């Protein structure tokens, strides 16, 4: 009794989050894992323990193809986000002298996060469309004679849209990482004879790698699980793995296969996350 009284507060403190995890994380995953071994049988599916769904995923080329396509899109989105976000964050941290301008620019990147995802994706539809803003602009400049349909409903449009939507998740960790680098380290590098470029490569970039890794992880995982961009701006070749999963749970009424796909996807994402976790931790021991 006294044991209980003494430990009740700590049991509550620990218990609530543990229950939360059990209820909202372990239970759903448990259900998904269970389903993934079930068998599709008209009209729905029946309990079973077999690996047919997993075998299908790795033998039917359509799933491998979509996995690879999703991987490609996610990598491209992460790369594009990185190439845009890094110079931007670098400018904000090291070159932008006005605090007001820096705050303003930072907010300009972050603010779209408060706008509905759908709206932001729709915006790109109007920009990239055949009669869209980009085409009108290029035609008014005389660069093209007639509207091009090359911008919308293809993988390019998906990469552009996803990059736009997820770039805040690249900017934020890189900005934080760069901000944490003491200015005297770059000064020390210059003092030791290194020009600005070499200082960047040998000091700033390596020290910001944990932020880059975090940014890559976030944008990659978010893109990897996206199913709205393919729907809105993707073309006939835009199906991503999340769309396939949605189809299996909906149209195909094949929850076992859908669950197996979700598990495979989860494994891919967790692998990426733990790889980057390790990289960040490594960066941390070498970090500031």
């Amino acid at each position, binding site marked *: 009794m006294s044991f209980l009284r003494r430990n009740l507060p700590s049991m509550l403190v620990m218990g609530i989050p543990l229950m939360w995890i059990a209820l*909202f*994380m372990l239970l*759903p995953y448990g259900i998904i894992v269970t389903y993934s071994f079930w068998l*599709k049988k*008209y*009209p*729905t599916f029946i309990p079973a323990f077999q690996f047919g769904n997993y075998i299908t995923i790795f033998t*039917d*080329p*359509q*799933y491998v*193809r*979509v996995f690879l396509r999703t991987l490609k899109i996610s990598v491209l989105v992460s790369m594009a986000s990185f190439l845009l976000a890094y110079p931007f964050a670098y400018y904000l941290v090291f070159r932008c002298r006005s605090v007001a301008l820096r705050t303003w620019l930072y907010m300009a990147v972050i603010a779209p996060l408060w706008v509905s995802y759908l709206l932001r994706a729709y915006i790109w539809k109007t920009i990239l*469309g*055949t*009669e*869209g803003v980009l085409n009108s602009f290029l035609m008014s400049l005389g660069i093209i004679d007639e*509207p091009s*349909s090359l911008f*919308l*409903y293809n993988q390019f449009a998906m990469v552009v849209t996803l990059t736009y939507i997820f770039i805040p998740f690249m900017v934020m960790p890189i900005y934080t990482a760069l901000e944490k680098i003491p200015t005297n380290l770059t000064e020390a590098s210059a003092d030791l004879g290194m020009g600005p470029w070499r200082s960047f490569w040998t000091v700033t970039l390596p020290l910001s790698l944990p932020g880059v890794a*975090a940014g890559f*992880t*976030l944008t990659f*995982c978010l893109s990897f699980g996206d199913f709205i961009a393919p*729907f809105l701006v*993707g*073309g*006939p*070749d835009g*199906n991503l793995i999340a*769309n*396939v999963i949605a*189809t299996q*749970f*909906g*149209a*195909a*009424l*094949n929850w076992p296969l859908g669950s197996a796909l979700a598990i495979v996807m989860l494994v891919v*994402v*967790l692998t990426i*996350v*733990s790889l*980057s*976790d390790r990289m960040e931790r490594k960066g941390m021991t070498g970090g500031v």
Partner: protein
Amino acid sequence: MTIKKTMLGTLSLLALTASPVLAEGTINVLTWEGYADPSFLTKFEETSGCQVNATYVGSNDDFAPKLMAGGGVYDLITPSIDTTKLMIDLDFVEPLDTSKIEGWNDIYPKFLALDGIQKDGEYYGMPYVWGAIAFMYRDDAFDTPPTSIADLWREDLKGKISLWDDKSAIYVAARKNGDMNIYSLSDEQIEKAKQSLVEQKPLIRKYWATAGELVDLYKAGEVVISNTWAGYQSSLLADEGIKVTEFIPTEGAEGWMDSWMVVKGSPNKECAYKFLNMQLSEQGQCGVANVNGYSVANAAAAKSCMSPEQYAALHQDDPDYLDSLLIWQSLGDRFEAYTNAWNSVKAQ
């Protein structure tokens, strides 16, 4: 670590979905947009004392997952004739007491004869509206109007073609290949249809998933030819001032028919039947015809509440038209073969 947690947290949140609240004298319907339109529903609510909460689906594929998530939420649903059988087989719906439905005998016999809405001599679905999966083109894009499904495979229309993102794409491709038994295709025929769709893929601008999306594609000048839910999208486009023409290709068109079904164990039977009666009456039949532009199932009601022009335009007086349609059928255990083929096309 934080990333991992956030993501897992988000995923688990998505696992929870909100459900409508149950109340006395209230019926919850899971249906298509327009089927519970205020233009004719408000009057029903006033006279019957029954409240109607409508939840809309975007696809026939939404019915099963929504009902599988747990019973007791919805009272009435309106799946199409290719999905009704699944609802019955899943034991989601209960037999109708047709004696309680006025005007039952005025329903086109062709619909009452359909397999998909009955089982063991009992009716499970009340035919409501019907139409064709016609084809549609933008007038200003064609000098010679297209007449064939093959026009959706024309190289010169590359990047201007759209097709419904649905297993019905297999039906379209099969007919193009001369396979008219579209609801009982063999594996070889499905494979052939799949190959045709893969060939067509580079010509496709976008597969359309919702009615609104197809309208947008025409409006934005992205697409000039596609299949369509006859009467619906063309009228929306007409409202936008975009001239399109629907046509039934020489290979024929599929027909669809939506039926009201009562969800098993619905506690609000009285209101449910009041609602069914209203929907099959002139109030419901002309109501939905005016909102969605679909043809209706009750011939007698249509005749008395429609103008002669509308009556003709909706092919209500044209038994041949109805007969020419390849009315959707349940695919039964062949369903997976069709959806798998279509998914495989999209994965290409």
